[in-house]
Every structure is written in C-alpha cells, then in structure tokens.
C-alpha cells in the first residue's frame, strides 16, 4: 500500500493496538495531526503542555502494561517533552514518543523551531531514530514499539522531518523484524537458578528484595506464590508497591531512605538477599559498604548491566523475572519454610519495637492520616498516583496497596509535576477505577494546566493536595541538616486552590477536619468530575523513619515516641 509518512504513523498505531495518544500539535507535526483528524480508531488527548503528554503516556502505560504513546512538534514541543522522556527512562516505562522535525532540507540550518532532537534524547531514551526516508518508517515504527516493550522496557523517540511525513512510500507492517544486534535474554540460566535455590534452602535469614521490574514483567502473582510457598519475608522498593498485598503476612514493608524500621533492619541482618527486578538504587541501599553486609546476593534482572553494578551478585541470573520465578517455583519443594521460623519472629519483634506509624494531632490533620483514610474508604477501588515530596513518601508508606499497577509515581527521576498528568493517563487506561493523585502544594502547580485537559475530556482525576504550605521534603532536610534555615521553601503565599479548580470547570474543596475530608472525598467520587481536595495539614511533619543520605540502613532517624521531647 502506497501512503504518506503521516498515514504510516496512524496505520502503525492501529496495528499496534494503540487506543489513546497524548499530544500537542505544531508546525512540524501537522501532517500527522491531519491524519489523526481523519481517523476514528484511537482517541487523542490534548494535554496543555508537552511534558504532561509524556507523563500521561507514562501513567497510561504503568496502569495498562501497554506501550504509552505521545506526539509532539519540533523545537519547543520536543524540549518540553524531554523531562518526560528522562522520567520514563529512569523508571523503565515503555513509551513511543513521536516528534515532528523541520524538513530534511532545513536540518542543520538553524531553521525555525529546529533543535537536534535525537542529540538531546540520546541520553534519556532506550533508543531513538531520526527518520530520513518514508520507506524506512514502517520498520522504524515497528522496531520502536518492540524495543520499547521488550527486554528492560524504556522510552523510544522517533523524530520525523515534515517532508518525510508528506512523502509517499510503500507501507507494509507485516515485515519480520530482524534486529541482530538486539536480543534480550529472557530465560534464566538453569544452573544458576538451581544454585540459587540451593543457597535459599541453606540460608537461615533469607529476604526477598522486590523491585519494580516484577511489575514490568507482569510477574507479581508468580512472586506472590513464591513468597507464600517459601515462607520467606519480603521487603518492597517504592517501585514495587502492590507486588504483594499490604495484608500479606510476609510483607515487612518498604525499605530504603523512608523505609520501615523492620524492613531496613531485616535487610541489615539477612544472610541472603533475593533481589528480583531491583537495581540497588542509592535511595534503597544507603551506604553501600554497610548494605546487607553479612549476606550473599541472588540478583535476578533482565538487564545484565544492573547486575553487579553496585552490589556484587554471588548468584547473578540474567532473565525475565517471570520466567525465572516460574523456574524457581518448580524447585520450591527443596525449600523448607519451617527453617525460617525464628527469622520471621525476629522481624515481628522489629515491627513491634518501631512500627510504621505517626502521631495524631488535635489541631491539624496529619498527612499520613489522609493517606490512610483514603485507603480505608477506597482501598482497592482506587489507582494511586503521586507527585514528588513528602506526600509521595507517605503515599508509599501508608496506602494499603492490593495489586500491581495500582501505584504510579516518579521514582527514579523524582519529577514534581508528574502526578496529575500521570493520573489522567491512569484514568484513561482504567476508567473503572477511581484515579487519585496525592500531591503537594508545590508539585500541583507544576502541571496545573492539566485541569483543562481533564475537564475537556471528562477525566475525573481526584487530586488530594496535602497542603503544608511548604516545599515540604526540602524543608525537612533544611530542618534536619541545615539548622532550620528554610531557604525558599516557605509557600505561605498560595493560590486559592478551590477557585483555581473551579476556574477550569472542575470542583474544589478545602478541608480542615476528618469529617470535612470524608465528606469531600465522597462528594468528589460521586460528582465524577476532576477535583482538587485541598487538605490543610500539619506544616512541620517529617517523613520518618529516615536514613540520612549516605548513611547506613540500620542507622535510622525514628519517629519520636509519644511524650518524648
């Protein structure tokens, strides 16, 4: 079939089963938008900023497990999208991002809205392409989707000059891909797996260290089975929330900088770390030389470069977590869960000594209470997105997650402004669930224009703004490590969030008490329109426990016991 480059983009989307595209038009991509106008196979959601388009595609991808798609124009359209690409790259989120480029004849002339887009995206994408001939486009688009979702997933950027989108060429999407230089390893080495099983059987204090790779690999239910059959306790990274259900007795909690006392102590005392789809991020490990100091390490990951990058793996297994865990399950009979009885008791004791909790306050709501309360009221019915800051950590700590893909947050890059557009993407992917975004008074303003997107497309995201009148997380560090010099973090001057939401056609609530909060949430869920629920919370609350940056995991600052001080 002879069609234009622009039509090829549409045909490829249809062939890939894309049902939602997030984007923003402009000169260089207009030929493609013209074809979008003419088709009715997928919906296009016009965000009000290209960064938001990419975050929405990320949220869509995280919630659905499919490749997220965003489309932008050249120059400023592209540069606005870079933060989203970087965010997706850090969190291994499969995206295909299409950008327009100036016509081939103008490339290199500093033309209007010309920027070396592939030059910029090279370091924050899994792969990228500058298309120079429409005849290459079917192959490139097919490769882009394949590369984005296979192996360790990630964003792929395709930059298409305007004349290439007008060029007519042959379109055949049934071509066999022949990527001889790209062949991800998916099957774990059986000998290594056997050795790992033997090591587990011998260990006295083994510990599962579960990461976001499990969710990418759609392996959460296999992992649940493995945990249950072995009786080995587990800690989750922030990225892995929802792999185990919050009420799983073997789930100790989240580990790392703001992990629970029991999780961090378990990691410090274990004699065998069983890392599944993790990457030993510094926010997780604290001081590397003290991390799991007395333990051997089993490390399963699809990305060979993740293995022994930071912590030496005694049992490296390169492969898809799902395959490897399935192989492990076949040999699970060699493991006697009774062996770990006293280890499980040790952990219960850790938990009793310093449970993950907070102190209520009579004057103002505590942000942790809000998160817990949403959990009680909505629980499994909600998907949770977050922005970045204290509220993000409280969401990770206190929401009762029940399933994988329930939780979407910018982990690796820590991008303020991620939450609202991501929650729009989440809602587009799973409309049957309530889409909640826990956000801060700082973060929400970084993509607040998405109110318009949500109103126009009737995407009823509920933004719960935990308003502490501070860039709270930075303020916490200033309080603790900069002798309370709160430089430029005081957000006393604020918009009227209720009116702001209303100005766009959304609905706004300002609440100060538990009763008001319950009523507002109930109302927002019933009204089913985009909402801001501004909750006035305690200003000086800190996220605890806390492992100071570069400190050892077992050396946590802890919540003061009630009555201390």
């Amino acid at each position, binding site marked *: 079939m002879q069609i234009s480059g622009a039509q090829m983009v549409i045909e490829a989307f249809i062939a890939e089963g894309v049902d939602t595209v997030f984007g923003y038009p402009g000169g260089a991509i207009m030929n493609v938008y013209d074809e979008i106008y003419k088709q009715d196979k997928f919906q296009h959601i016009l965000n009000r900023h290209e960064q938001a388009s990419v975050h929405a595609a990320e949220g869509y991808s995280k919630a659905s497990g499919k490749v997220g798609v965003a489309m932008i124009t050249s120059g400023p359209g592209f540069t606005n999208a870079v933060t989203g690409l970087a965010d997706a790259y850090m969190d291994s989120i499969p995206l295909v991002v299409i950008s327009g480029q100036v016509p081939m004849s103008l490339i290199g002339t500093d033309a209007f809205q010309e920027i070396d887009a592939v030059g910029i995206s090279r370091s924050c994408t899994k792969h990228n392409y500058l298309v120079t001939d429409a005849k290459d486009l079917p192959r490139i688009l097919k490769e882009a989707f394949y590369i984005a979702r296979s192996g360790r997933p990630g964003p792929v950027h395709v930059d298409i000059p305007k004349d290439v989108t007008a060029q007519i060429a042959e379109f055949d999407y049934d071509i066999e891909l022949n990527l*001889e*230089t*790209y062949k991800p390893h998916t099957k774990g080495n059986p000998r290594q797996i056997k050795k790992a099983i033997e090591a587990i059987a011998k260990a006295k204090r083994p510990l599962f260290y579960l990461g976001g790779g499990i969710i990418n690999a759609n392996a959460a239910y296999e992992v649940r089975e493995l945990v249950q059959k072995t009786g080995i306790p587990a800690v989750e990274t922030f990225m892995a929330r929802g792999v185990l259900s919050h009420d799983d007795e073997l789930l100790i909690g989240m580990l790392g900088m703001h992990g629970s006392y029991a999780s961090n102590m378990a990691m410090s005392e274990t004699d065998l770390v069983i890392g599944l789809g993790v990457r030993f991020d510094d926010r997780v490990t604290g001081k590397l030389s003290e991390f799991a100091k007395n333990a051997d390490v089993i490390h399963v990951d699809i990305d060979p470069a993740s293995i022994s990058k930071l912590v030496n793996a005694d049992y490296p297994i390169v492969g898809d977590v799902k395959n490897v865990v399935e192989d492990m399950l076949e040999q699970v009979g060699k493991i006697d869960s009774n062996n770990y009885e006293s280890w499980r008791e040790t952990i219960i004791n850790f938990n009793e000594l310093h449970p993950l909790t907070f102190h209520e306050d009579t004057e103002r709501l505590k942000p942790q209470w809000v998160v817990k309360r949403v959990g009680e009221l909505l629980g499994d019915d909600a998907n949770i997105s977050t922005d970045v800051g204290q509220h993000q950590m409280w969401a990770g700590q206190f929401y009762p997650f029940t399933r994988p893909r329930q939780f979407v947050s910018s982990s690796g890059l820590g991008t303020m402004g991620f939450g609202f557009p991501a929650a729009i993407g989440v809602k587009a992917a799973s409309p049957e669930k309530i889409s909640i975004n826990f956000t801060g008074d700082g973060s929400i303003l970084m993509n607040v224009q998405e109110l318009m997107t949500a109103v126009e497309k009737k995407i009823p995201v509920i933004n719960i703004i935990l308003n502490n009148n501070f860039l709270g997380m930075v303020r916490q560090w200033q309080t603790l490590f900069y002798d309370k010099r709160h430089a430029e973090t005081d957000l006393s001057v604020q918009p009227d969030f209720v009116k702001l939401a209303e100005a766009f056609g959304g609905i706004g609530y300002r609440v100060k008490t538990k009763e008001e909060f319950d009523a507002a949430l109930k109302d927002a869920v019933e009204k089913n329109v985009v909402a801001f629920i501004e909750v006035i919370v305690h200003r000086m609350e800190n996220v605890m426990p806390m492992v100071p940056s570069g400190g050892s995991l077992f050396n946590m600052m802890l919540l003061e016991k009630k009555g201390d001080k």
Partner: protein
Amino acid sequence: MTEENQRRVVSVIVINEASVLSRITDLFSGRGYNITSLTVAPIPESKYSRLTIVTAGSVRVIEQITKQLHKLIPVLRVYEHEDMVEKEMAMIKLPITENLSDINALCEAYNGKIVNAGENTIIAMVADEPKRIDNFLNAIKRYNPKEIVRSGAVALER
C-alpha cells in the same frame, strides 16, 4: 576485586549507521568513563564498523563499560580481552636539517621509515605497540620534531 585503574582495550562492533559514534561517546561522557583513544573504521564488505577504545578503570568500571556498550541497540559485539594484539601508528614532522639516516634507522626499529620529504621538513611514520610508540616519541625528541600525530590504538584479540 581491585579498585585500581587499569588500562584496557575494548573493541566494539557496531552497525554502521548515523549517530552510532555519538551513542558510544555519549555513553562514556555521560557515565564518567574515560577515553584515552578511540579509532573507528568500517569493516570491509560488511555493514559494520569496528571501534577500538583505549580506556582505564577499575575492574567494576570496565565491566560496566562493556555491559553498557552492549545495551546500546546498534552494538553487535564487545570484546574486552586482556590479551589483545595492539598496534598504533604515529607520524612525525621533522626539520630536513636533522640527521636523516639516523632518523630513518630509528624509525626502522619501530617498523617505520621516512615517508615524505619536502623543501624544509620530512615526515616519518612508525607503527608499533602503543607502549613502544611512547618510547619512540621519547627517542625522537632530540631531532626536534615539529609535529606529532598518533592514530590511537587498534587491536585484535588473539
């Protein structure tokens, strides 16, 4: 595991396509690895090119370099051997007034010779192991070289 920096030669076979070289050099600069020298040329009668990169780093860093190179989509193979046959070429411009037979003899000891003579200067070339090129360049100093150019190492695993 030793944390000392070791010199290492890494050979990379890549698809010969646009911006593949930038992918490689961006990887080195982005991750803070160093490049002592880098050569690249197409492999005859194939769609591939071969890069030879001389780098330095601890065992862990070198391992990361090879793994990260492997992750790049257009990279076919990465060789990182202790045991490589290495050669490098150097060209030197010298005043024609220097003792040409001595210079020629010195070059010959390093698989080279005088390859060009102009009105005021001559150009000599040598090709040898990088270490020996260092030695040669030391020895040639006394003939007042005006310009020196090194090619960077190329290498083949045994």
